[in-house]
């Protein structure tokens, strides 16, 4: 054991000193590794931030992490495909499932008309208390107020829709929709609030009213379109989903967000793949330089390696020594690269304004402010890939060095 310690101390000192014998080369290589690692982590943080934002926005628009509805509702979002407000066993099951929040809502296509214009909209009847957790609209009110109770008589519309309809806060508009008997029911509403969404498209589309008010309008007392369930985190909802699925009647359909919006699910799943591909590509570009540095370092030291072998150093120790040299180089580079990445990402975490391409981002489903997100997982991934692949690529040059015949090596000039 002490023998090993002694050996390790020796080869550590040898590796460390060797690293700085040709300090220019070491600096250049450190520069390359630092830039590479910085780019891996920086880019990943930007992408991660963008995808997180897309997922957040997307899930708020669905809305919810899990939805319960009539099996035909998603295909035919009509008032005909509504369900009873939960009671009895379902109510107990929902309350016991352990979700952060659940609420019912009405959602159906409607037409809104001001004195000047009319537009097709998505009319949403909400239980306002839960809405902050579900769609986040109450926090996005720019004028007036949000719906305040289940019986509220007011209407909340988006700023863009108000502009399209040439109407404003306090004005009356007419909302028309279809009741279950195919009759058009219509009534006037006063606009009590205007909201501004991160995604302008939504502003034009979603109009909020109180749930019970819409039930009366559509003559569907006691019925709702959907039950929306949100948990603390959209990433780990599988257990909750299974629990709910087992406890509700088969006549209802339960769907998690990743089944409702497959684009969001694809983005979510692609992100980890993207990180890995990006990190590996950068590593490959680095690996040429790394191998080059090692090959050169060994080439310069052929005589020396022959000599220490002749003096009795075992080939295995030569391999260790070279691998350690490579590892030290990688670790210093990683240290600088990680440091740079943290220093550049942290100041940007308060938000990077990319409103120049806002409508393009909206097309992708992201908002016009980018919040880079530095996650431990991504950093470990980048560092892990660099160290593991770095050591693997160093094995060949190291092994070749150890295989040299001492006599021949000593005779080279």
């Amino acid at each position: 054991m002490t023998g090993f310690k002694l050996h390790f101390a020796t080869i550590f000192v040898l590796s460390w000193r060797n690293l700085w014998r040709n300090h220019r080369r070491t600096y250049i290589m450190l520069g390359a590794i630092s830039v590479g690692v910085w780019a891996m982590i920086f880019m990943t943080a930007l992408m991660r931030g963008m995808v997180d934002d897309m997922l957040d926005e997307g899930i708020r628009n669905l809305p919810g992490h899990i939805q319960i509805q009539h099996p035909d509702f998603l295909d035919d979002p009509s008032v005909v495909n509504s369900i009873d407000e939960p009671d009895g066993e379902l109510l107990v099951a929902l309350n016991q499932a352990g979700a952060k929040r659940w609420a019912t809502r009405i959602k159906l296509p409607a037409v809104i008309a001001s004195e000047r214009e009319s537009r097709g909209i998505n009319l949403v009847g909400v239980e306002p208390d839960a809405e902050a957790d579900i769609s986040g609209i109450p926090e996005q009110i720019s004028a007036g107020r949000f719906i305040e109770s289940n019986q509220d008589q007011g209407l909340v519309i988006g700023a863009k829709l108000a502009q399209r309809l040439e109407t404003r806060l306090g004005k009356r508009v007419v909302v028309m929709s279809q009741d279950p008997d195919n009759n058009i029911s219509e009534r006037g509403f006063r606009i009590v609030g205007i909201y501004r969404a991160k995604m302008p498209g939504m502003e034009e589309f979603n109009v909020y009213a109180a749930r019970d008010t819409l039930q009366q309008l559509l003559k569907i007392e006691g019925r709702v379109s959907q039950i929306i369930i949100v948990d603390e985190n959209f990433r780990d909802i599988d257990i909750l989903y299974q629990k709910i699925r087992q406890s509700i009647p088969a006549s209802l359909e339960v769907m998690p967000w990743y089944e409702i919006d497959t684009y969001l699910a694809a983005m979510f799943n692609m992100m980890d793949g993207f990180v890995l591909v990006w990190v590996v590509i950068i590593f490959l570009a680095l690996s040429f330089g790394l191998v080059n540095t090692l090959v050169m370092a060994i080439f310069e030291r052929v005589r020396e390696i022959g000599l220490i072998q002749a003096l009795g150093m075992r080939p295995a120790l030569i391999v260790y020594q070279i691998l350690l040299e490579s590892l030290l180089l990688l670790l210093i580079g990683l240290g600088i690269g990680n440091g740079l990445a943290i220093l550049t990402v942290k100041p940007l975490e308060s938000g990077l304004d990319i409103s120049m391409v806002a409508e393009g981002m909206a097309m992708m489903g992201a908002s016009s402010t980018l919040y880079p997100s530095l996650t431990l997982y991504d950093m470990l991934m980048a560092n892990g890939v660099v160290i593991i692949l770095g050591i693997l690529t160093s094995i060949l040059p190291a092994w070749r060095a150890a295989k040299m015949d001492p006599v021949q090596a000593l005779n080279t000039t």
Partner: protein
Amino acid sequence: MKDVSLRMAWRNLWRHGRRTWLTVGAMIFSNTLLVFAISLQFGSYDMMIDNSLQAFSGHLQLQHPRYLDEPKMRYTVPDVADSTDNLRDKLGLNSISARAAGFALASSDERSYGIQIFGVDAKHEPLVSTLPGLIRQGRYLVPGASAEIVIGSVLARNLKVETGDELSFLGSGFDDSFAAAVVRVVGIFESGITDLDRSVAQVNLGYFQDIFAMQQRGHAIVIRAPHIDAVEQLQIQLATLIDDESSIALRHWDDLQPGLKQAIQADMTSAWFMYIVLIVLVAFSVLNTQLMSVLERTHEFGTMMALGLKPSQLARLVILETGMMTGLGLLLGITLGAVITWYISQVGFSYPGMAEMAVKFNLPERLYPAISFISLFLGPGIVAFASLLASIYPALRLNRLLPIEAMRAV
């Protein structure tokens, strides 16, 4: 002399064959990747633009100046059909079509939905938009026929109608009168663009003008250029034909679909960040190799200077060596990149999640890279330039070399 330095540079490169190959390898790797990535980018942007614009909005539109920001019924183009005929004659281009647009509540026996209803010229519409060709059921509008409508597939599903069924719509006309009619569904189109399939319906322009009390007015003259590259030219030509800028504005597809251009810009920016990182890493590799090769030849360079060579000649030698290495990397990288890209442009490229992305950006399920002169040479060209730049520092160090001291170095 020229010949000698060329030969010297070439031989110097192969004194350390492995090192040279590793450096060239880094170039080949980056160049191949760049050729592929840039070709793929160009290919998908072209497709994104084509698919999005050809579906409906066209390349250019003439509208009332306020219509773009506030698409309201009252911002009209006067005498739209005649003006369009006129334009077709003057430009000698057939793919120009007039449209009017309005909002209506469409009702079938079972359902009602708010829809975007367009009055189109059934004869010329197929030349500016791909929708008429995407009829899945029934047929497209017949020129001049009234009380016919074609609708999107999602809308048809939501309204629970098929071809042959009747549909009534209700909206408000140009003079704020009621605009109501009963029409027969003659065709159902499916574009794959959800927004269009969900909310768009088309009737004949003349019929639309009657129902919505528009008289001879319309809302847009849609122009499709023969090719995307011809748009700018056409735009200049059209600008000269507009005599009254207060009543008519010419809109480029950037204005009509700002999201498209910006999505491309955002994607370009992130892609170029990645490319630049790759290029910088190659430059480091070259810097490393060339600095080493200069430093290890201190003795040799000293001797050459003692024999009468000037530092600038030695510097040229170093840059020539880099140039040869770069040339090799360029040639092999582009060749390899072109071969791989060409192969993929035949079979298409796809990755998990691609199908869901594709729908969002109006792309097909497989991407086909577009090889062009630019996509082949742009990336590798920058790599070559950066490599030569990186060899300047090692080359400049030669100026500091003193022959006597240099010759003493081992």
